[in-house]
């Protein structure tokens, strides 16, 4: 906040009646009745994504040309995009609002493009702890769980009894998935999350009740172990989609009926299960002396009325979808995303704010309101075509 320089003596007065500072000291925020609230909401595509990916967010990064940033945002919800980008039944695309204007966004194609990027990305990671987690089986659930636990700083080891990692995904026909993709995805996953992967591991259980490995927590991955594999006695069953955290030191994952046995197109569900399990496991482990983590509040779904499709002009249809995307192609496609419920820095609110009181925030992912000056006219909320800004009575 700029301080207000005050003229106190005649000699300080400029000769001509010229200004000496700006009006920033004048806090017009107290003119306000309603306050603009900037908050991302779940887009219809994200609401229907089995992995719960807030899709407009990574599309937004790609639109801005930040392809690697887009991948990082995607990995935060899905560590195996190259696989889902090929195998998932993509309900997201059937819910895409854009289809009401011209045609749906190629969300899955984008996922695949990002997953196949050769470049590495930086992801957010917590500090390393001494707690160890061993995951037995390297199916999509196990790998996903390993990834998020690794990102949270746990020392994670994945023990795979067979010679090849991938569990249920190993041996899919090349028509479904190119042979190199699986290893590319797994390699990135273990590299980014700093995971020890051991194939051909001996995971035979010597005696009933004995833990299969020395660790603070052992997780048995149903998508990575054959059905013959018997859970050791003492293992606690856990449904990743149910409430509550993990109790006990050996966890046997119990999936809902519709996910068993393993179905390839449902891969995103297993990935989501792994992510949720990691969360529960982390909650359980932290209870041993660490502070309670903040509750993960799931965002509100955006209402369809707040998406003002009439404000979006129909894009000129390109002749044909490209076979393989380049960065520019990806950007062009991502640009078409309406970014329902998610700020994509279109800056309409910034352009239309009469009080210069809304501007991109520091991390450049959304906008923030200067409440010292915002007069609460409501233009930003009215003009936001994607329902990110709402006018709230915060005095209540």
């Amino acid at each position, binding site marked *: 906040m700029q301080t207000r320089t005050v003229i106190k003596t005649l000699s300080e007065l400029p000769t001509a009646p010229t200004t000496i500072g700006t*009006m920033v000291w004048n806090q017009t925020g107290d003119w306000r009745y309603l306050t603009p609230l900037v908050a991302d909401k779940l887009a219809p595509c994200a609401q229907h994504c089995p992995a719960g990916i807030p899709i407009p967010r990574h599309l937004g990064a790609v639109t801005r040309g930040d392809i690697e940033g887009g991948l990082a945002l995607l990995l935060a919800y899905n560590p195996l995009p190259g696989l889902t980008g090929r195998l998932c039944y993509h309900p997201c695309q059937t819910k895409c609002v854009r289809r009401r204007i011209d045609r749906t966004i190629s969300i899955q194609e984008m996922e695949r493009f990002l997953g196949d990027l050769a470049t590495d990305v930086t992801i957010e990671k917590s500090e390393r702890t001494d707690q160890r987690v061993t995951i037995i089986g390297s199916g999509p659930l196990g790998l996903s769980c390993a990834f998020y636990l690794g990102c949270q700083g746990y020392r994670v080891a994945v023990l795979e009894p067979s010679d090849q990692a991938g569990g249920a995904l190993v041996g899919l026909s090349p028509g479904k998935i190119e042979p190199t993709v699986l290893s590319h995805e797994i390699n990135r996953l273990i590299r980014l999350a700093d995971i020890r992967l051991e194939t051909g591991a001996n995971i035979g259980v010597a005696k009933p009740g004995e833990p299969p490995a020395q660790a603070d927590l052992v997780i048995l991955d149903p998508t990575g172990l054959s059905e013959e594999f018997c859970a050791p006695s003492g293992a606690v069953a856990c449904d990743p989609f149910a409430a509550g955290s993990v109790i006990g030191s050996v966890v046997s994952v119990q999936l809902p009926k519709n996910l068993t046995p393993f179905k390839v197109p449902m891969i995103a569900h297993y990935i989501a299960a792994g992510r949720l399990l990691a969360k529960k496991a982390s909650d359980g482990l932290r209870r041993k002396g660490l502070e309670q983590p903040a509750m993960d509040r799931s965002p509100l779904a955006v209402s369809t009325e707040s998406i003002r499709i009439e404000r979006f002009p129909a894009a000129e249809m390109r002749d044909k979808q490209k076979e393989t995307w380049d960065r520019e192609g990806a950007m062009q496609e991502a640009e078409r995303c309406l970014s329902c419920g998610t700020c994509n820095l279109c800056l309409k609110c910034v*352009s239309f704010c009469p009080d210069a009181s809304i501007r991109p925030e520091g991390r450049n992912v959304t906008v923030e309101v200067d409440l010292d000056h915002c007069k609460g006219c409501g233009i930003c909320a*009215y003009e936001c075509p994607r329902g990110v800004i709402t006018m709230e009575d915060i005095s209540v």
Partner: protein
Amino acid sequence: MSEQIKGKRELFVPGHYGCPGCGATVAMKQTLSVLGEDTIVVMTAGCWSSLIGIYPYTCLTVPVVSVAFGATASVAAGIKAGLTCQGNHHTTVLAFAGDGGTFDIGFQPLSGVVERNDDILFICYDNEAYMNTGIQRSSATPAGGWTTTTPDSARKGQRKKNMVEIMAAHRIPYTATASIGAPEDLKAKLEKATHIKGSRFIHLYASCPTGWRHATELSIEVARQAVRSRVFPLYEVIDGDTWRLSPMPEKESVDAYLNHQGRFKKMSAEERDRLQKQVDDEWQCLLGKCQVPNRAG
């Protein structure tokens, strides 16, 4: 259109005294974000000269002078002459006046300046009445509109003066209409205008929730509706003889435009019909000038 000019100062800072939802401030903000910091602004009595701040503080960080009512164009021409004779040919001199300072009291100097083709950019931020003094009729007030000097007992009967036609009749190099509701179009026009030497005039439609009696959040919407309904079509005129229509949305009736605004509350059905016909006729006339085949009825 982003206000973020990397590595440069903010040209428009908050803390000014504009009403909530003020269209005139949006007009200035959008304009400066295109023109940049190599700009000198001349303004006159009007909303802007009083909302900009209180001595010794300002909300614009480009050089500004607030001059006598009506002297906007002439002071701007003087500034340009003063800069030119010192070898400065790059600074944009922006005369920024309201409809009163353009259509009425500022008309003679403006006509003089553009007739001499002095190298200035004149933007009229048109909110269709003397808003700063509390909503009095100007020659830019539309027929049927309420103001405090055309009260409901005597609403304005005369039609709005067509400034762009008048400017075009001066054969100035560039004149255009623009709207705060169409910032991309405004940006394109400003960029075009900055690359033209001589007098350039932009008639910039800027809504006023206080004077037009509409909700503050609708300022941009009302401006858009004026364009959609063809009450305020977007076009440009090059050298006074080449008329070009700007990108226009689908045509709509004037109803939505009128319904949002309390100043038209008392318009009868006949008045609305008459207005619709006038708008339709003028639109056809404009299409003719632009040599566009009859489209969108």
